[in-house]
């Protein structure tokens, strides 16, 4: 799989990260080398193997439906750059 500049810019846009022109070349080289590394997995024949979403052979942990509201509004908002009337405040976004 080849990561060209166009897909790199799209990926940046989806993650809301701006990628400057001078960084494009290096970044796509880096990403491609990562992909090449991972591509080695393709050499293994998996015809007889069911797709797996997790390599741990365990059951999913579950919990009971009990309320435990430990975190205060103050804690939750503590790292918010902007807050007002107990809301997070962000630049206007209307979709």
């Amino acid at each position, binding site marked *: 799989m080849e990561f060209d500049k166009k897909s790199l810019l799209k990926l940046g846009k989806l993650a809301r990260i701006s990628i400057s022109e001078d960084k494009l070349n290096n970044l796509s080289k880096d990403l491609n080398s990562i992909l090449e590394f991972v591509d080695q997995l393709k050499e293994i024949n998996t015809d007889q193997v069911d797709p797996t979403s997790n390599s*741990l052979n365990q059951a999913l942990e579950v*919990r009971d439906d009990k309320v435990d509201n430990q*975190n205060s*509004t103050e804690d*939750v908002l503590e790292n918010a750059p902007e807050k007002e009337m107990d809301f*997070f405040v962000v630049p206007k976004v209307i979709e």
Partner: protein
Amino acid sequence: MVAQMIEGWNLVIGIEIHAQVNSKSKLFSSSPTDFGSKPNSQVSLIDAAMPGMLPVINKFCIEQAVKSGIGLNAKINKKSIFDRKNYFYQDLPQGYQISQYKDPIVGEGFVEIETENGQKKIGVERLHLEQDAGKSLHDQDPNFTFVDLNRSGIALMEIVSKPDMSSPEEAVEYVRKVRSILRYLGTCDGNMEQGSLRADVNVSVNKPGNELGTRCEIKNLNSFKFIHAAIVYEAKRQIKLIEQGESVNQETRLFNTQSGETRSMRSKEDAHDYRYFPDPDLLPLTLDDDWIKGLQDSIPELPDQIKERFINEYSLSSYDANIIVSDKATSEYFEDVVKNRNPKLVTTWVTGELFSILNKKNLIIEDSPITSKQLGELVDNIENGKISNRQAKEVLEEMCESGKGALEIIDEKGLSQISDENEIESLVDNVLNSNPKNVKKYKNGKEKLFGFFVGEAMKLSKGKANPKIVNDLIKKKLSQ
């Protein structure tokens, strides 16, 4: 008018319903799910997506999804997988929603709806569990958006239909039916005003015989009225475009509840690229056969079965049965009243008089000012002839205002109906004796006067005489 505009066109409608699971805590965290709490007061560090937090799934939510699946006659998947649906938005702190993509917990099923052409089966494609997002408020400030994460992480069941509906009415019936089933099961409270159940509607139009048209998705409809109006508007819009030689763009649209119009939200070019992948924080969910069987055995009687039973047991018409079973509380109320009473009379009083009072007062049956026991007492007094139907209406109004019981009001107002034949006979004799001229005219063929005699007798009894007995007796006496 709707039919006229749309005549000559096929409508193809598919619906995604988002139903909030009736759980106390969230899908992957122990934060409460109460509606209307103070902003950001029900947010754990998991819901706020602080680094290093791990989701742990709520067992109750899994049960509710499976129960709902059983209620929708659907296949329960013994293995399902949670995936990350990636998109960037300010009310989604994780940057992804935990959802299910290729392997949902519930597979194909169906529900049956009533249409003008009889029963119709609407296919269900799947039901999966996912997290709700937070809430953005755009109108608090001209330059900023305010975010409340209380809803973030609440468990939703997304129920996806097949594109089997072909009119706005069928679409509304389908949502009604699904809502009713979930409410009977107790898996979702179905409160549309509070957003516990909302629908995204996919609409396309095409000429009969032609291939399917391009569809548009209208997001977030939270009432039956809006679902209907949005589909009508959208179908007309698409037909107009095609008739003008233009084409329909595949896009997501929003319905403006004020103007009744839909407007474009994002087009296919800006469509999200969700880059789904299995959530590495969550193992696959596997369900045990015995556990599923246990849930199957716990499923209560559902609306279709209750309808069937009401028709057989109480000889209700399909129409009346439908009205009564469409809401769980109504069918329970009806069953409370109908026990050992005349079903026809009870049906009339529940769906007629009681409903009209509730409508007038804008109340749901759970908040009815008249309990099922009180209505039963009223019906008893009609059945045993103590009061007439007309008097009963008066008593019901009074019951509603004062909260007093039927008997108490009947006694207070001296309303009880006279059904004693001897007593009524003397009234009738009195009327006939004091109107000899009219009796003569009647006997000479002026039969219209019959009503006059009945009216006089009723007047004399202050409206209390049993009208049927009065009629019978006057007829008998005048023919002597």
